[in-house]
């Protein structure tokens, strides 16, 4: 049985619409106007038990709405879905025992209390006995390296520390499926890496399926085997992450800063110079890693002057999605 089975799922929201100004406000009182937003449009996909599936797309693509339908919080407008054999919006409480959720933009830990209080509360809510709860907290504290943070009020934790506690809390009851909605949002590079490592380790150890939404391609690369890209509530691409990388995440962006000025016509073989900064210390380049190896570019950049700083990054996911659209259109 698949862990998640979704068929033709759709969700529409009706929201009030009002032009600016007092006149429009008064008109809207008498004759309110509504518009319908189709957040999810005929979505169909499956996810196997223990699978690490990335669900990505830009803001407003329908990722969070889909996750909320799959956890039973929102009722869909149409279609069907089963999560671990349960229809989420009809069997929300039974399903809750088997899934863990993290909504990256919302805290579930009690803000003024230490995380240990929330974890203990969750132990009771998920009906674990006190000994089980204690043992599980110790396991999670070690995996997420939060032993020293558990007794500090949550308000005093950094965002990265808090997120590690949040994810640990969502795993307390040993769920079979973890639904992570933007778990790395707002985190710095180190904190992101930290949290990704812990999730990957726990998922492998306990065979937990992970459905992860993100608009950060790094989350996807680090955690997921398969990816579904959605935009405007529809699937625009689904395949293995390795295939996506091969096809689309091949270009790299490099930003370098030199100790001395470079020429206005700065060039490195096999790369495209996007910008030379006005004061001519910084340069931005792009290259295709399939054609020009990363090592070769690094060596050439280093040979061109004394490097002060260097950043290498993937293109923004929005660009990848644009490339996917482009490819689909070309095929047509």
């Amino acid at each position, binding site marked *: 049985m698949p862990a998640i089975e979704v068929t033709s799922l759709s969700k529409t929201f009706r929201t009030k619409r009002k032009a600016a100004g007092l006149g429009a406000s008064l008109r809207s009182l008498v004759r309110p106007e509504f518009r319908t937003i189709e957040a999810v449009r005929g979505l169909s996909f499956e996810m196997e038990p223990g699978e690490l599936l990335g669900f990505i797309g830009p803001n407003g693509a329908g990722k*969070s709405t889909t996750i909320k339908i799959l956890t039973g919080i929102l009722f869909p407008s149409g279609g069907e879905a089963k999560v671990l054999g349960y229809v989420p919006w009809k069997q929300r409480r039974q399903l809750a025992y088997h899934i863990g959720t993290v909504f990256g933009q919302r805290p579930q830990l009690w803000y003024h209390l230490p995380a240990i209080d929330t974890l203990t509360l969750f132990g009771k809510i998920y009906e674990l006995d006190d000994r089980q709860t204690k043992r599980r907290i110790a396991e999670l504290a070690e995996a997420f390296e939060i032993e020293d943070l558990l007794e500090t009020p949550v308000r005093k934790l950094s965002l990265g520390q808090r997120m590690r506690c949040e994810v640990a809390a969502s795993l307390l009851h040993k769920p079979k499926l973890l639904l992570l909605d933007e778990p790395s949002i707002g985190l710095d590079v180190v904190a992101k890496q930290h949290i990704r490592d812990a999730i990957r380790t726990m998922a492998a150890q306990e065979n937990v399926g992970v459905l992860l939404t993100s608009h950060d391609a790094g989350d996807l690369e680090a955690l997921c085997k398969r990816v579904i890209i959605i935009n405007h509530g529809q699937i625009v691409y689904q395949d293995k992450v390795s295939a996506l990388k091969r096809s689309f995440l091949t270009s790299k962006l490099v930003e370098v800063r030199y100790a001395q000025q470079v020429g206005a016509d700065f060039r490195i073989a096999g790369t495209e110079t996007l910008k030379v900064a006005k004061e001519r210390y910084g340069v931005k380049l792009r290259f295709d890693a399939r054609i020009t190896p990363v090592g070769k570019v690094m060596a050439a950049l280093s040979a061109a002057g004394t490097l002060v700083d260097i950043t290498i990054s993937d293109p923004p996911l929005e660009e990848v999605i644009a490339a996917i659209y482009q490819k689909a259109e070309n095929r047509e």
Partner: protein
Amino acid sequence: MKKYFAVFNINLVNSLAYPAELVTRSLMILLFMWIFYQLWRVTFAASGSDVLNGLTLRDTMWYLLLAETLELGRPRLARVISQQVKDGSIAYLLNKPYDFLLYQLSSGLGESLPRMGMLFLLGGALTWVMAGPPPDLVNWPVALVALVGAWLLHFCFNALIGLAAFVSEEVAPYEWIYQKFTFVLGGMLIPLDFYPAWLQTVSKSLPFAYMMYGPARLFVQPDPALFAQIILGQFVWLSVLGGLLLLAYSRGLRRLAINGG
């Protein structure tokens, strides 16, 4: 039930996380009780009688203290649920294996109890100094029973208004109306005994009298007939509002839209 006790407990601990804030916020009752005392002292003096509509000045003050304690200490659930819908944190509350309404009840109780305790303690001390000692100890358990019913009625009203946030954008106007009804028809500003007979009849046929007047009046004069009337009224209104609450919850859930995707 263990999980609901744990929810109650964590709310209690959370309310006590800042004891100074708890005390400072409760100081408000001192001002209210002082104003009430000045008003009612003049009223009793002007009437030339020690007893008005069966209540002495001391009775009136202790009545008002209990009513104020309930009003200032009741759970602010309508605002809480509405905020949870607005900021999206409702998502975490709905995907846990508990009954959402029982969760809110336990949570509201944990938040409300320390506040009510502190209000009663501070307000009671001032009332004692101004108007005289509290009612006989035998009155207390009678009032406490009615207080539980009154608190539950407040919970139902608040939760109903809070659930309106599942479909409406703003619930503050509904809360405002509910509060003013409890002030006037619930007998929070003036004991219902001071109203003309027809208004007393109207008030007592509505739920608000059982949410304020009932426990406050029993606290100062625990008449058995009144006790029976209050408890019966609370039972009837709890059945009606409880039923409505369950219905509103199951309907509201279908229409819930969570902000922020």
